[in-house]
């Protein structure tokens, strides 16, 4: 413990210099900005700034890149809440209740809860890195292909619980998502599937295309079909920007649960952030006394997932810093930057480059605090944005969506694909088919298939591999219990009542 404090003081010593504070501030501002602009991702920004950091001291460079990354996670929730546009995959969940809160006139409260929940989660996540980094890295190594498969099964079944309306439609959307997830090169055999001879589809359909096409754009279309007089995005009156006492009482435990869940799921390379947000939402719905009100603007549905995704964003650094495995494209870029400086990420970095490692950890505390200081006063301004007439707001939002989609891969094809997906999204919206289970299936489906087939290759075709391993078996048993819960008639009855209402 004493050792930890000594390390942290080394770190703060390195991170609290004026220039490093400046780089953290620049990173946080840039990150918030790109997070707020829908679709403009941290990956593109970090890539553009990467060459700039080559000339900097490695620690300063890392601090700036890292603060862009978590700043973007932070900013992404703003558009999700205000205009139903998820910028990052993990903000999809925030759309569900955050946007409803905004429509109920609680936009300020939703944004404050998201910001404070993220701060708490960011700090806890960073403590995890500082105290338990190497230990947690060991845990993530116990997660091999069979465990990943079981985790994905669990996640997919959980996604049905996410839906508010008909279970049948939710399951149908999950299956559709699985099919769309098949598009592209099959990892196991190298065969092309559903690409129709188009090179553009070799790597599947991008997540940003689907997220904006299914969430944001159909929302705009359905707003536009209403007469102009009733088209205002929000209710006319804005209550206080701060959450009420009652909201705080409900948000705090949700935030703590989300943080713990996110801190753990974040260390698993691949899909940690989105799984964390989804599982936290499902958990909140399960423990709530009024699960039927989720999707109508429940503060727990914002606090939990927002904390979970921010905690996961922090602990995602663990596999990179301790094992040299990037768990997010931004991490891959940061590893590239370290390699150019002649440093190789891995467990040796803590020993050989203590100032870099602990300086980065210390800067995460500072950066998370900075983000709240930057963002809390901004909430008032963001909410004002909703007073902009819709005829001016929606073209601006659409333009940012297009820029965002294009900037992911510099691909005009993806912008056109998004237009097609949005048309489909509008049809689903009209049919009452919810996009959240679909999107989760697109993300988790390919990973599930890949890990299933890989496990079977590793066991030379013996399915016993899934029951011989304790973690895997436990996850599969949990999945079976979840199915039973969904199928239980009493629950089904309650669901139908909600749907009728």
């Amino acid at each position, binding site marked *: 413990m004493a050792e930890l404090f000594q390390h942290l003081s080394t770190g703060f010593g390195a991170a609290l210099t004026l220039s490093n504070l400046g780089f953290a501030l620049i990173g946080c501002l840039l990150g918030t900005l790109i997070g707020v602009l829908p679709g403009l991702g941290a990956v593109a920004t970090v890539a553009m700034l*990467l060459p700039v950091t080559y000339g900097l001291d490695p620690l300063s460079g890392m601090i700036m890149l890292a603060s862009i990354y978590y700043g973007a996670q932070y900013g992404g929730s703003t558009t999700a809440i205000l205009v139903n546009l998820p910028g990052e995959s993990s903000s999809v969940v925030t759309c569900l209740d955050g946007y409803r809160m905004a429509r109920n006139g609680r936009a300020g409260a939703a944004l404050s809860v998201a910001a404070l929940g993220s701060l708490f989660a960011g700090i806890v996540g960073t403590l995890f890195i500082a105290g338990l980094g190497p230990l947690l890295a060991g845990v993530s190594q116990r997660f091999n292909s069979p465990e990943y498969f079981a985790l994905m099964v669990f996640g997919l079944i959980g996604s049905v619980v996410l839906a508010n309306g008909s279970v049948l439609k939710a399951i149908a959307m999950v299956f559709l998502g699985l099919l769309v997830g098949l598009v592209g090169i099959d990892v196991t055999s190298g065969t092309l599937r559903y690409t129709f001879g188009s*090179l553009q589809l*070799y*790597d599947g359909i991008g997540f940003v295309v689907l997220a904006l096409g299914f969430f944001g754009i159909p929302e705009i279309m359905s707003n536009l079909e209403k007469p102009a007089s009733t088209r205002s995005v929000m209710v006319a009156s804005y209550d206080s920007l701060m959450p009420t006492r009652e909201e705080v009482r409900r948000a705090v435990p949700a935030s703590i649960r989300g943080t713990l869940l996110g801190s753990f799921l974040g260390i698993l390379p691949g899909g940690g952030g989105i799984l964390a947000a989804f599982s936290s939402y499902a958990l909140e719905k399960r423990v709530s006394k009024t699960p039927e009100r989720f999707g109508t603007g429940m503060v727990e549905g914002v606090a939990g997932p927002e904390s979970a995704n921010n905690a996961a964003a922090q602990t995602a650094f663990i596999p990179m810093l301790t094992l040299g*495995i990037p768990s997010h494209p931004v991490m891959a870029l940061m590893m590239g930057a370290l390699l150019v400086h002649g440093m190789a990420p891995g467990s040796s970095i803590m020993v050989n480059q203590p100032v870099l490692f602990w300086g980065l950890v210390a800067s995460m505390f500072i950066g998370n605090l900075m983000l709240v200081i930057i963002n809390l006063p901004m909430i008032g301004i963001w909410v004002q944005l909703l007073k902009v007439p819709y005829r001016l707001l929606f073209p601006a939002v659409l333009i940012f969506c297009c820029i965002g989609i294009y900037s992911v891969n510099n691909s005009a094809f993806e912008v056109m694909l998004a237009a097609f997906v949005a048309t489909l999204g509008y049809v689903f919206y009209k049919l009452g088919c919810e996009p959240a289970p679909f999107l989760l299936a697109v993300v988790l489906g390919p990973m599930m298939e890949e890990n299933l087939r890989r496990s079977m290759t*590793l066991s030379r075709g013996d399915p016993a591999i899934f029951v011989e391993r304790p973690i895997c078996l436990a996850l599969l048993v949990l999945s079976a219990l979840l199915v039973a819960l969904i199928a239980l008639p009493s629950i089904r009855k309650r669901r139908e009542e909600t749907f009728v209402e």
Partner: protein
Amino acid sequence: MIRALAAAAAALTLAAGWATATLAQDNYPSKQITILVGSPPGGPTDTFARLVAPEMSKRLGQTVVVENRPGAAGGIAAQGTLQAPADGYTLWFTTTSHLVIPTIMRDPPPFARDALRPVAGVAYGPGALLASPKAPFSTLEEFVAYAKAHPDELNFGSSGVGSNAHIVMERIMDQLGIKLTHVPYNGNGPAMAALMANEVQVMGGDLGSARGNIQDGTVKAISILALDRSSIAPGVKTADETGLLPGFNPVFYLGFVVRAETPDPIVAKLNGVVDEALAEPAVKEQIEKAQFVVLGGAPEEFRKLYEDDAAATRPILEKLGLVGK
């Protein structure tokens, strides 16, 4: 009369065309040059392109921008290069796995290698045969003996079917007469994680990106797949040295290509500029820090490198039934 007029017109057009062409070549470059990279930001391909671009820009007096066009194992960037005019303003910074393997593996191929011509090789990276720290062997000899004594027990990882790591391992197995089960992963990161966790026991990788893991012992290098030993693991013999794989040197290389119709003077100019950029001490040092070796040299030297590679790769892919997928 009409025929004469037509002939004159044709001659004039030709002359005019020739004149503008020469003019274009003399003025080259008169506008921004774009380098297409077929992989997302990060990783050696993107990093090296961004390292060389400013030096080229300095010497050409025009902006040189790097544009990432990831997708289809380089196919999107190849398409972008081939759809642009053959005027030397669009270059493709490519690699083994983007330039050679897809053109053999896919039917129809995403692009024809002949539709491109080399400008210059930039760097190559030595490979290494990596093993899980828990694997019961630490040298190439021990590995071969173990694999022969325990058939169908070992797995090898790769970053995908038809990836460089996959092909290298298939070549090794082919030459050594051993059989391991191929377990492909979605990218290099997950494959390395699986190697550390002993889910797969061996993997062919490039030495540069595995350096940190080799140094802290989370994976072990059992053989260097190049003709010279490496400073990262000085005690590890090269595959050639062991006598088991004489002359085995499956390097991973990076370099510039342009459309085949690009005029010679433009290619020569670009080649010269790349050579100068690579001679710049700062550039050379950064490339060497990443454990790569600077290439440079005439365009045809780069062509020989990738055509030799294609000749070695094709029979392996054919044997695996991966041609025309």
